[in-house]
């Protein structure tokens, strides 16, 4: 991270006073004991307490805080629940965090027009919870859904296990109230099936807090399916499991989820959760939805496809308990891996046809770097999640793990994929962006940021490689 601005840190008392002038007392925190709680997100290897934290309750309060920061030229780091795995909410010592946690109101549930309007501090899971009595749900379901907020989901364009069928956040976001860096409040989209002019909401979604802070969102809601059922398919090789994924997709069956776990992951999960998974090279969990006859028809089709590939096991769930047992291991995968030691979790995406090759190469890289890796991921869309195991107490191990991770991400780009499928660039992948994009490709993205944030105050030193953004930041500092 760049050197924090000592001049700003020196002015901390005046900055806090200016924020307190426009905000309720309890909405501004700068006691180091309290700001420490905001020193990192879920990428815990990087920490830095912010200068101050603002916890607004309304759009107007967010706007007031942004105006002050803009006037005093103080960097702003937007924060939802702080569950980013990419350091998307990592503070700098000279920044004010504006957190959306207290923006908790559900503003409108409209089942006739099939949307919900919420303040963006509500958690992802609670949105579906609100909708349950109405027979609807909100589709994107990142695995942090118990904690993560809609604001963070929009900022990172979050996905989840079920996006093979339902898409990611951008496909389910209809409207947004955005506070721009100078405090101006803009409404984009709405309950209409737009967009009308330029799709600025589409641009905003996934912009990692570079363009503004979304305080209210209109989300598309869907009627709950009548039922859902997973099957578990075990294979004795990664390649054949990858082939099964491609054949299922080609067949015309569109499962809501196809999850993949490799042998390292399976063993960890078995020791941790005793899910009763087969001991084999790869397991797929395929979930289909609908009424009982629809589900049975789709499972029969999947069974036929899988059988032709000689699976080690094809396990169906006949009731809710058996369905839960199939999901149990997958849902505990990250916890199980945590018991094996420290890990970093990557999320590069590769074309589905390149999955077997990518898995093989990751195995080779693992041997070369001398670190173990487990693979658990959304196979239907090629969004890999290699977990690199290391020992944080061993000097140099984190750096080795990061170097291994960078090699995996370069591999993803080389086979036609991308650096990040759903976690975002943040600080973690910032300096790898040049691998995926040429200088001119990055330049136009930075020019777009410059339109929204001419002083470059929003979420500094994220997304864009520092050397590439330097001229932009220097120019901005003169404004």
């Amino acid at each position, binding site marked *: 991270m760049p050197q924090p601005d000592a001049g700003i840190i020196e002015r901390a008392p005046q900055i806090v006073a200016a924020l307190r002038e426009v905000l309720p007392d309890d909405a501004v925190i700068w006691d180091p004991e309290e700001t420490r709680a905001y020193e990192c997100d879920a990428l815990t290897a990087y920490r830095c307490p912010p200068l101050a934290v603002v916890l607004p309750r309304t759009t107007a309060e967010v706007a007031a805080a942004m105006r002050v920061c803009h006037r005093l030229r103080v960097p702003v780091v937007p924060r939802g629940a702080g569950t980013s795995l990419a350091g998307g909410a990592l503070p700098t010592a000279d920044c004010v965090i504006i957190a959306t946690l207290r923006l908790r109101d559900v503003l409108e549930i409209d089942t006739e027009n099939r949307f919900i309007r919420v303040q963006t501090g509500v958690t992802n899971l609670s949105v579906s919870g609100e909708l349950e009595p109405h027979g609807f749900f909100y589709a994107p379901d990142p695995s942090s859904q118990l904690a993560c907020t809609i604001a963070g989901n929009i900022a990172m364009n979050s996905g989840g296990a079920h996006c093979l069928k339902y898409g990611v956040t951008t496909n389910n976001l209809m409207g947004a109230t955005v506070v721009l860096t100078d405090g101006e409040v803009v409404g984009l989209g709405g309950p209409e099936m737009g967009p009308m002019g330029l799709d600025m909401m589409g641009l905003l979604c996934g912009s990692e807090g570079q363009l503004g802070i979304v305080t209210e969102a209109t989300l598309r809601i869907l009627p709950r399916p009548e039922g859902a059922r997973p099957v578990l398919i075990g294979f004795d090789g990664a390649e054949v499991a990858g082939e099964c994924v491609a054949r299922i997709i080609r067949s015309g069956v569109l499962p809501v989820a196809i999850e993949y776990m490799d042998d390292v992951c399976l063993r960890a999960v078995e020791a941790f959760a005793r899910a009763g998974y087969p001991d084999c090279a790869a397991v797929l969990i395929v979930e289909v939805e609908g009424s009982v006859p629809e589900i049975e028809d789709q499972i029969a089709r999947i069974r036929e496809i899988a059988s032709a590939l000689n699976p080690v096991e094809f396990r169906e769930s006949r009731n809710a308990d058996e369905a839960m047992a199939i999901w149990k291991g997958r849902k505990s995968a990250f916890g199980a891996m945590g018991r094996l030691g420290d890990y970093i979790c990557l999320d590069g995406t590769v074309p589905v046809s390149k999955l077997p090759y990518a898995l093989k190469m990751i195995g080779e890289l693992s041997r070369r770097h001398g670190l173990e890796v487990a693979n658990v991921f959304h196979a239907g869309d090629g969004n890999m999640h290699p977990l690199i195991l290391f020992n944080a107490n061993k000097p140099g191990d984190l750096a080795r793990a990061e170097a291994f991770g960078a090699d995996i991400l370069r591999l993803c780009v080389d086979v036609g994929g991308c650096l990040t499928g759903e976690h975002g660039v943040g600080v973690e992948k910032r300096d790898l962006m040049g691998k995926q994009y040429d200088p*001119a490709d990055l330049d136009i993205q930075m020019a777009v940021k410059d339109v929204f944030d001419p002083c470059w105050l929003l979420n500094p030193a994220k997304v864009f490689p520092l050397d590439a953004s330097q001229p932009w930041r220097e120019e901005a500092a003169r404004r």
Partner: protein
Amino acid sequence: MTTDAPSRTGLSPASEAELGELIAERHATRQPLRITGGGTRVETGALSGDTLSTAAISGVVTYEPGEMTLIARAGTPLDEIQAMLAAEGQSLAFEPADMRGVLGGNGTSTIGGVVAANASGPRRMLVGACRDHLLGLRFVDGRGRVLKNGGRVMKNVTGLDLGKLLCGAHGTLGVLTEVALKTLPILPDRCTLGFHGVTVDEAAQIFARALATPYEVSGAAFRDGTAWLRVEGLGPQMGYRRDRLLALLQLREAEVLDAEVTLSLWRGLRDLDHFAGTATPLWRVLVKPSLAPSTVRALQALGGAVSVDWGGGLIWYCGPGPAQEVRQIARHATLVRRGGLAGPAFAPEAPAVTRLSLGLRRVFDPAGILNPGLMDQ
């Protein structure tokens, strides 16, 4: 604005690099260009400048049915792509319309034009618009730089999503040269339920009830006193869904149309056959579905005809009336066929949004040479 076409030269570069050079030259001399794919989707006749067509930058780069991914150069004919996908049992699920009947053109629709227009048909309400199926693109900006954004994979949050901006920008931010799109399996079984002799209010009620079910109704349109629901599925799915919907809506008598009639009916609804072959102004109006009945009545009072799609979310108004009055009834109205009406085709934006739009246009097209005036009059 007049409808007399100014005299102009036609340019059709054969490659992305050639296109880049051409635009760099026009950027330097600040000469505007009128950009088209096949020229079938938007009325650009009155725009100034030489015509730049991407038709020669053509051909499918990759099609992988097993990963539901298509990459094609911008000038590739839509028909060609649709035939290739259909041979694998897949399609572009967002169902782009053929607008030639409505706009009176005889060009060849291109995939680049589809993306530039964010063209999305009846299934949009279920599966999303073209922009939701766009995975990545290559384009030339207003300075002649060849740029790319996104990629070919379904999940990708690497950097800013410029594809969303370019999709629906009608060439004003850049000239598309290659697009990557998600394809989806065609559900092999289909039928249509027709409810005849209903008012627009009754149609809205039918839509609201049907679309609150998990039966994935993939079309909900209203025209000439009939509400249509399209039901699709795989295996026993379609029959099950049809029967459940009929039971749910049993207070009304429904006609059930078979698969073949369903295909032609929805093609006609998609392409607006009922508003083709005239020069009357045609408006595309987006509303919250529950506002469809009142909006339809207000538009009809202006003296024209109306049809409804997207379960009430999209209203087509074909008829007379000053632009100002149409926009007073419905804020989000786009003039698709001018029919002699002057003034901007696109709805005005809020001042803050206009400021951002102008800023973005300056970034992508500093000299203002790409379809100037098409979206921002």
